[in-house]
């Protein structure tokens, strides 16, 4: 049923399955596009806007993780403008809550930190906000620090779409959005949670983590084993 389309990414001709998103196709062809909220194996959000690309013929920029490929499309993954926008996205995420890497459990294993280095974010042009959420240590194996959360919703999507539980969601909206368990319950008292650990494995930053285990160990291995191989891509809101 699925048709094949041909497009170019940075001048390179590639073939792709119709309906796939640009980011996925780029990765399959070893073309790098920075991305943050994207997680292969679950639906795409299109929220962080780090993965923006240009498409020849349009003055706009597109989040590659939610833009389907099309026949004859010419994708440009790098330009002065794209670098400028990606930098803003990372800076704003860093300034949104107190991300002080030196005191964070994820130091050295954080995707946000990596991207900041990669995109040359060495200082913040906007003031940092010192949010003061309570650290949740009530779960016997996991911990949740909302002060590090970048609202990428990877945890929500993996808990819902892979574990099939939907113990996690967002409460409030806009800048007040917060990741919650059940009715904003403490994690240890959230009845829906099966303690599978998937959410902490996919959290790109130091917001959800396994207590007392170095992050390097948890992330890499488990991520590959249960998420990467899951289901084919489906793109929803």
């Amino acid at each position, binding site marked *: 049923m699925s048709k094949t389309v041909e497009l170019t990414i940075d001048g390179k001709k590639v073939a792709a399955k119709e309906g796939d998103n640009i980011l996925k196709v780029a990765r399959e062809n070893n073309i790098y596009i920075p991305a943050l909220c994207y997680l292969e194996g679950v639906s*795409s*959000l*299109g*929220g*962080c*806007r*780090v993965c*923006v690309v240009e498409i020849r013929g349009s003055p*706009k*920029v597109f*989040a590659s993780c*939610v*833009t*389907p490929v099309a026949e004859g499309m010419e994708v440009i993954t790098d330009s002065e403008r794209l670098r*400028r*926008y990606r930098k*803003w*996205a990372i800076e*704003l*995420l860093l*300034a*949104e809550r107190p991300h002080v890497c030196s005191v964070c459990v994820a130091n050295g294993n954080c995707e946000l930190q990596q991207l900041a280095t990669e995109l040359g974010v060495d200082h913040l*042009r*906007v*003031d940092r*906000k010192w949010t003061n959420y309570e650290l949740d240590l009530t779960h016997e194996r996991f911990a949740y620090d909302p002060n590090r959360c970048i*609202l990428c919703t990877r945890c929500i999507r993996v808990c819902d779409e892979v574990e099939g539980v939907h113990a996690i969601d*967002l409460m*409030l*909206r*806009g*800048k*007040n*959005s917060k990741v919650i368990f059940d009715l904003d319950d403490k994690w240890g008292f959230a009845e829906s949670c099966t303690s599978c650990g998937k959410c902490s494995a996919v959290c790109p930053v130091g917001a959800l983590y396994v207590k007392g285990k170095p992050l390097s160990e948890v992330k890499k291995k488990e991520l590959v084993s249960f998420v990467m191989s899951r289901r084919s891509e489906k*793109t*929803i*809101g």
Partner: protein
Amino acid sequence: MKPDELRNLAQKEDELRKSYRYRINVCCSSGCMPFGALKVLSAFKDAVKESGVEEECYVARTGCIGTCSIAPAVLVEPGDYLYQNVTPEKAKEIVKEHIVNNRPVKSMLYGNEAYFKKQLRIVLRNAGKIDPLRIEDYIAVGGYYALLKALTRMTPEGVIEEVALSGLKGRGGAGFLTGLKWRYVARATGSPKYVIANLDEGDPGVFANRTLAEADPHAIIEGMTIAAYAVGASKGYIYVRSEYPLAVETLKKAIEAAKSMGLLGEKIFETAFSFDIELRLGAGAFVAGEETAILASIEGRRAMPRPRPPYPAQSGLWGKPTLINNVETLANIPVILLKGSEWFSSIGTKNCTGTKCFSLTGKVNNPGLIEVPMGITLREVVFEIGGGVPPGRRFKAVQVGGPSGGFLPEQLLDLPIDYESLTKAGAIMGSGGIVVLDDTSCMVDTAKFFTEFCVDESCGKCTPCRAGLYKLYKILDGFTQGEGDIQDLDKVEDLCEFIKEASLCGLGQTAPNPTLTTLKYFRDEYVSHIVEKKCPAGKCFKDGGGAGS
């Protein structure tokens, strides 16, 4: 209902209407209600009874006449005598003098012809002149004839063609060609199909859609039913802002009335076409008016926009093809079908046909709801219809397009109102808000106010809007308190560009407009705040008495 029954009813109602020498229309919409409109209504009824002129004079409870600043407003026909700030006592006098003695009470009239002169009422054709709760009133003035015509004498494709030829563009903000959108939905595969009438109108200071629903709900229902016939939909939803209780109530009753007459439901006018409408209430989220967010909201979820494609025309409610139109767009449809696309496209400009409703507010002498042909200039709207700024004040800026509309200065007042010109100048048509500011308003403070609105209403999904707008707000807030330096202005522009270009939905994409346009046209005010620590309008630096001192 059979076709003949509609004609007979219309004739009967028309005769009834003509049997009265006078008709007193008492505006009982949200604008006049809080100021005692219902008491005025019963005072008129009593006075008419007491004076024994019941046979000659009909007292109607109507929707908004458009002159909300003189609430409660009362319109006496024939002659369209408009009385202002009517009280029960004044009502008595009006009946005695105007009705019984045939002498209009000059001293109580709203002597403002300029307000109406440049207006052209198509969408608001019946507003203030019919009782929205009596479907017979609507039928008497030709209501549901367009539906009859469409169902019995036109093919769905024929209806779409007529709408396309009229040049009508969506009145909900984006200005997308209505005929084209209908065609997409008509051609989409999938069943059932849905129609959504968008009455979320979350823009603060905009009340055109609400007024329409309160004054002429059947125009929306009829337009929607025709749209459903054209695209092949069997079910419709009207999504109404919950802050509009009177509009909700009016629509609810109107839907019931249409159902009981067989104008909604199974086999309308004995054709094969069936259509049903349900009301859905919003719950206080501006972003829910965005077309993908409205889908999520009707499906009972958080109203977060999602990336497009897929467009609602392909995959809307529950994954089915869905047509989403603003209620003002829909209210134009019956008139277009009855009077023809040629007539419609002769109004307005070549690229922008028809009229547009605007809520005119702010520092203007005659605030209210107006409907004007496209292409009219802002100057005509602000100074002729609106009567200019209050005495002794100087005009400073006009904002067009709701919270994310841009501010235009005096030198751009001769701009014609159409989608292209407004967008080029940095404003937008939006849902039709016009706010006038005079020299007592500070542009930095005003930009901050609108940015704060968008911060509050951001759904939070994407970084530029959620995190970027908040930082923008903080920087603007700093300016109003004497913080920041002149280089910050470049940073603000750069940040605004990012938010505008990289946001997921229209909210983020337009939210920087107030800041960008004030920076463009009123940069000196920013400079004065930042460098001289002075607010030219005297609004900022309240706490410190001027940080520069």
